[in-house]
């Protein structure tokens, strides 16, 4: 098992370096001179040259990439052009907000998605099934900014139950978490339902019934564990995606998380900050993948034993 985890971890490293390289090259070909962007257009050419030299902007791109990666290894992602502060500091400042939003919305997503999927599967092709699936389809289909605005209008502006924007207490996180959680609950519910229906057709379910188990026990003890394997993978990836910053939600609800600073970085062409946030997001998604793989191995004995044997 430890070897399996180590191997999966080692595979992740080249992926991360590859993403970083592509990102670096792409941002390098984006038009616009960083020094001009940073200091304004009406500035003496000599000063620009001096700054370029200080920031090593005239070095070959691979040399700069190497320098950047060495810095990144030490946790140094450069300095934001716009804010003139360490990128890593800015990310660490924003991350707790994103983490909070992620935890709350993942919770919403699971407590809606998993039971909805199970009920739909157990009562499939009935009105309950169709209503639940319609509800989850709505979650997936409604654009977050629209659902967010609608909720702000109803619950904040009209009813005055919740604050419109901000991040000061858990109350502020209710609407963004519901909007975000609902959108991923749809995927979780549909996946749970289809997997469970598929598993319920298996011979071992018939065996469980022939043993004399009640239908709820058959579903809960024999079908669910099998059906949840792919769902857990998706859930881990969703969490990783959310941790990378829920751009729309954070913008609509004014939460200064990773997504929000990424948007700000794009608006101000703040390359180091943008690069830092994207790289950070990538690392989180890769870690989520890794976590999903490890969890999968824990839950599915077929994979666990295969790994032990290899």
């Amino acid at each position, binding site marked *: 098992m430890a070897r399996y985890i180590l191997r999966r971890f080692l595979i992740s490293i080249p992926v991360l370096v590859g993403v970083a390289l592509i990102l670096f090259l792409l941002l390098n070909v984006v038009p616009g001179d960083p020094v001009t962007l940073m200091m304004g257009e009406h500035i003496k050419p000599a000063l620009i040259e001096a700054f370029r030299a200080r920031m090593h902007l005239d070095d070959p791109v691979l040399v700069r990439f190497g320098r950047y990666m060495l810095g990144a290894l030490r946790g140094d992602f450069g300095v934001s052009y716009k804010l003139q502060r360490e990128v890593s500091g800015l990310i660490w400042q924003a991350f707790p907000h994103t983490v909070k939003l992620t935890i709350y919305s993942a919770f919403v997503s699971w407590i809606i998605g998993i039971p909805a999927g199970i009920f739909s599967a157990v009562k499939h092709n009935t009105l309950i099934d169709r209503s639940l699936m319609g509800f989850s389809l709505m979650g997936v289909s409604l654009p977050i900014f629209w659902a967010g605005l609608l909720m702000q209008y109803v619950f904040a502006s009209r009813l005055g139950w919740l604050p419109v924007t901000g991040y000061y207490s858990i109350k502020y996180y209710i609407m963004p978490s519901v909007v975000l959680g609902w959108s991923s609950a749809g995927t979780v519910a549909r996946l749970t339902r289809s997997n469970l229906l598929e598993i319920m057709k298996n011979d071992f379910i018939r065996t469980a019934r022939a043993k004399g188990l009640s239908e709820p026990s058959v579903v809960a003890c024999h079908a669910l564990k099998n059906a949840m394997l792919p769902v857990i993978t998706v859930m881990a990836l969703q969490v990783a995606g959310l941790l990378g910053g829920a751009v729309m939600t954070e913008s609509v609800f004014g939460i200064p998380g990773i997504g929000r600073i990424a948007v700000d970085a794009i608006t101000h062409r703040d390359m180091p900050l943008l690069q830092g946030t994207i790289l950070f997001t990538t690392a989180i998604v890769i870690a989520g993948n890794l976590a999903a793989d490890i969890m999968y191995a824990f839950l599915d*004995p077929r994979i666990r034993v295969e790994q032990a044997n290899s």
Partner: protein
Amino acid sequence: MLQIRNLKTHFFTRGGVAAAVDDVSIRIPPRSIVGVVGESGCGKSVTALSVLQLVSRPGKIVSGSILLDGEELIGKPSKQMRRIRGNKISMIFQEPMTSLNPVYTVGRQVAETMILHRGASKAEAMDRTVEMFRAVGIPAPEKRLKSFPHQLSGGLRQRVMIAMAMACKPSLMIADEPTTALDVTIEAQILHLMKELERDMGTSIMMITHNMGVVAELCDYVYVMYAGKVMEHAGIFDLFDHTKHPYTQGLLNSIPKPSGVRGRLFNIEGMVPSLLRLPKGCRFSPRCEQAVRECFESEPGLYAVSPGHGVRCFLYRDCGDGGEAI
């Protein structure tokens, strides 16, 4: 012990009603192995699932009676029926590969039955599982408890299934083609094991198969089914020595004989009719070499050719009615 009387299980599909089991009567006496033989789709498995009330939609038991030790099973509340499944009547299936849950150890799956029906503690159930594994010939039973199904061979998995089925010492075990997915040597071992268990534990076995060889090897009594009906039933020696029904004769002739003349094997011409479009008259008539005009017009009853030997064929009408198994 088990008496199935005039059982009708139909499937209500969009294309019409399929009478998968049509007026079937089967009797399984205590301490006996009764074979139910027939081609795929003849209603053998549906009969077995009807006994356990596990026919899934769109199938439904329409009428008939299933008595277990005099107790009617049809219409029994599901809670009471669950106490019978796995306890008094157990079942093993054709595919040992897929009949066990892949995410649980085999020990746990066998123990589950005893915890459920016998109220055994986990430790007791595990001890008993080891005993059961030993009884069904699983080597190193203590070690095997912790194995997952995919770590075992097909033969071992079927032994696990048998251990699970026998765990609560049921009075009847239904075996639905238990050896079809296994190779010949393993098949012989499993059949031998079942015979031994029947002898040692006194459990009756309803053996569903399409293999006449298995029937000859194992069974005391045989029912031959075709398109949802019992065509012939008889004691094992009677059936092989005095085969009456043209369909049974066809089945027996289809078995390759080592001493026979080399050449094309015998086959019954035609195909099993669709249950949605059954022929008028005898269901076997379109394929029957001995069919007369009457066979295409009306359905024959079960005629008693000798005590305990019934045949559904007009050729034996002179023998008189009363060929029902009960």
